[in-house]
């Protein structure tokens, strides 16, 4: 009997990419995604956590600012501090910043408008649990859909992110060049995604879960989920003890 990895997809009031994330895992073998309502207090032994995109609490006040007080966030913070992989996409990234699991903040897009279209992002660090299936500097085509994705952090934080290889994705042109025109929201250093110091918490604005099948226009996001499963399979000796 094969034991499946368990991934929690957290639903906050206003999350709207929870089903999309769930589905992205569903397409893979060896993993059992499960929804977790934000009011649950315990994560209860899952192997990884996803904070999906959407508009938790309507994005009122600041995107992610209210969701980070949801009961489940205490467990998520603990899980992350203990080294458990946490993936925050779009609104999930914003929540991670508000919760202090990632540095910096996501401001309103510099063009002041919501932007929804495909972008190209360059894999800056294939050495994370989320990117091992990518080549260095591989260019991916994935959709964005956000109004507050302009990454901002103090200069010393940016220097630290740069120096420690914690910038995982940057916006770029189709051929991998960095340019202001290819930066959809004004993010500092073209940042599209970063990890925490330990490397187990990834926040990114683009939506890899919307790019997992050719019929949707791109499957460049699929290796991200596969990378995570590789990582979990390798690092989850306890998986064998679970019953399904």
């Amino acid at each position: 009997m094969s034991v499946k990895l368990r991934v929690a997809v957290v639903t906050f009031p206003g999350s709207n990419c929870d089903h999309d994330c769930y589905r992205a895992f569903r397409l893979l073998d060896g993993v059992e995604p499960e929804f977790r309502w934000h009011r649950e207090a315990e994560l209860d032994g899952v192997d990884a956590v996803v904070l999906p995109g959407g508009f938790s609490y309507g994005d009122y006040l600041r995107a992610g600012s209210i969701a980070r007080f949801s009961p489940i966030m205490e467990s998520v913070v603990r899980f992350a501090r203990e080294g458990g992989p946490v993936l925050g996409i779009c609104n999930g990234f914003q929540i991670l910043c508000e919760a202090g699991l990632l540095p910096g903040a996501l401001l309103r897009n510099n063009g002041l408008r919501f932007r929804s279209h495909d972008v190209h992002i360059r894999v800056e660090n294939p050495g994370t649990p989320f990117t091992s299936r990518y080549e260095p500097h591989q260019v991916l085509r994935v959709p964005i859909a956000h109004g507050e994705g302009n990454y901002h952090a103090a200069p010393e934080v940016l220097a630290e992110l740069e120096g420690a290889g914690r910038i995982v994705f940057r916006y770029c042109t189709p051929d991998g060049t960095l340019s202001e025109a290819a930066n959809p929201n004004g993010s500092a250093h073209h940042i599209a995604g970063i990890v925490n110091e330990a490397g187990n918490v990834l926040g990114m604005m683009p939506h890899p879960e919307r790019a997992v099948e050719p019929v949707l226009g791109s499957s460049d996001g699929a290796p991200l989920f596969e990378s995570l499963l590789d990582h979990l399979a390798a690092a989850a000796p306890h998986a064998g003890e679970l019953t399904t």
Partner: protein
Amino acid sequence: MSLFHATVRVTPRPGLLDPEGKAIHHALESLGYDGVGEVRVGKAITLEVEAASRDEALARVDEMCRKLLANPVTEDYRIELSEEEGGTP
């Protein structure tokens, strides 16, 4: 000509729903703050204007509010003015 420092406070008209205020109220409550009355969220726009007199400055900012800064259909506004360097509020 003097420089005046204006703060324009734009608030949702009374009676209109303020979903953002509602969400903040809800969040404050669930953080354990009770006895918080109605919360409403508006904008505070600060700008500097040159004008010959306080009255002229006020008139200019008022016009800006009507034309651009506030949406007359859904928002009210209030102007606070102070003269740069030693002006009184």
